[in-house]
């Protein structure tokens, strides 16, 4: 169980990385923390010709607080957020999520940007960041662009980031002092891939409410109808959540529908009780 052969280049800065991506003839992958790519390559499910290691690009490791947001560089590791090394602008939301991703040894190397751009449906950050209203900063040879996460994921393992683009980081709006959130993950055991994730952020001061269902068969799903109910302070039973799921996705089998509905209902209950 060893990877197929590949070439390896270490990028010194973002421009260099983009140059390497553009210049390669074959299949190229960016290596950030490698905690998802590594297993896929060991299993030879991914066989890139070239790995562009962006792990030493200091600019991608920055954490920056502005008056209304927090910028998290793509290379910020989960453990840094777990350990409170980023300012808490989300009333503990990001920190709580970071601390329950996979295992500590994975969190010590895996990156926020890598997780979001990998877009594994069962990953935490795609769902959690979408619920928080984050936007992605993507850089290419033509400059940088910002994309809200509601327009970022195009399916399972699929995003709008182009082959010669680099995700620089995520901008997460600051939660107000009255913001409330709930996050409920169902998995066979801690650290495993999630079977369902419900994520809820309510921030009346910003007239903001989002309810997201993750760990489905595709991109995380926004549930605006539930968000309106939650914004109005209404509880959502499992049956209610199931009905809301039916309105946006008809393909779940009864088991998946049940656990998705439960994850959503429990996340909402947590948010309302917060």
């Amino acid at each position: 169980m060893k990877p197929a052969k590949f070439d390896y280049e270490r990028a010194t800065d973002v421009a260099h990385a983009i140059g390497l991506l553009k210049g390669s003839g074959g299949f190229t992958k960016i290596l950030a923390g490698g905690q998802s790519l590594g297993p896929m390559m060991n299993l030879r499910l991914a066989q890139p010709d070239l790995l562009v290691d962006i792990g030493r690009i200091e600019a991608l490791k920055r954490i920056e607080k502005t008056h209304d947001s927090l910028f998290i560089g793509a290379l910020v590791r989960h453990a840094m957020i777990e350990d409170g090394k980023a300012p808490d602008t989300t009333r503990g939301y990001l920190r709580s999520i970071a601390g329950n991703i996979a295992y500590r040894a994975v969190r010590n190397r895996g990156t926020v940007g890598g997780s979001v751009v990998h877009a594994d449906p069962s990953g935490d950050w795609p769902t959690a960041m979408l619920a928080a209203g984050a936007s992605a900063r993507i850089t290419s040879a033509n400059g940088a662009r910002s994309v809200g996460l509601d327009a970022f994921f195009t399916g399972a393992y699929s995003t709008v980031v182009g082959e010669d683009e680099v995700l620089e980081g995520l901008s997460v709006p600051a939660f107000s002092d009255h913001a409330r959130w709930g996050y409920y993950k169902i998995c066979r055991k801690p650290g495993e891939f999630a079977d369902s994730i419900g994520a809820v952020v309510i921030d009346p001061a910003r007239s903001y409410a989002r309810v997201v269902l993750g760990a489905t068969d595709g991109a995380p799903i926004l549930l605006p109808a539930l968000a309106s109910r939650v914004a109005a302070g209404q509880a959502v039973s499992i049956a209610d959540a199931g009905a809301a799921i039916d309105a946006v996705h008809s393909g779940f089998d009864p088991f998946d529908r049940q656990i998705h509905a439960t994850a959503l209902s429990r996340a909402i209950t947590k948010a309302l009780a917060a």
Partner: protein
Amino acid sequence: MKQVTMTVNGRSVTQLVEPRTSLADFVREQLRFTGTHLGCEHGVCGACTVLIDGEPQRSCITYAVSCDSAQVTTIEGFDDDALMADMRTAFHENHALQCGYCTPGMLVTARDIVRRLPDADEKRVRLELSGNLCRCTGYVGIVRAILSVLAKRKAA
């Protein structure tokens, strides 16, 4: 082949590696530090856990070439570490190992739990151990060993 220089167990090493060589295979096959074990090679079982720049990480899904200039500590590199000495004693006294295959990775994680979470209770210890699989002990001795080191440090 790429040249890589890193510090392993306190000594600087410079070697040529294939980019696809994992850090685990590098320390095992090229440096002959075979205490780091491979149990799944996809980042789940934890047998290959080593310290990279002081933090526990999976050496099976980390390429040696990407560890250039890093400080790597394998199970063979803790001889002067008082906390690891305590942990080894506690593992011995609590029958926290049987076949011993998971033990090196388990010890690296266990030491990190005590270092990072001095107030951890049994539930937290178990949660923190979720990334290290043991097939022999039922985790009873392992959890007891870690709790005993935590208690000892608190009392000191």
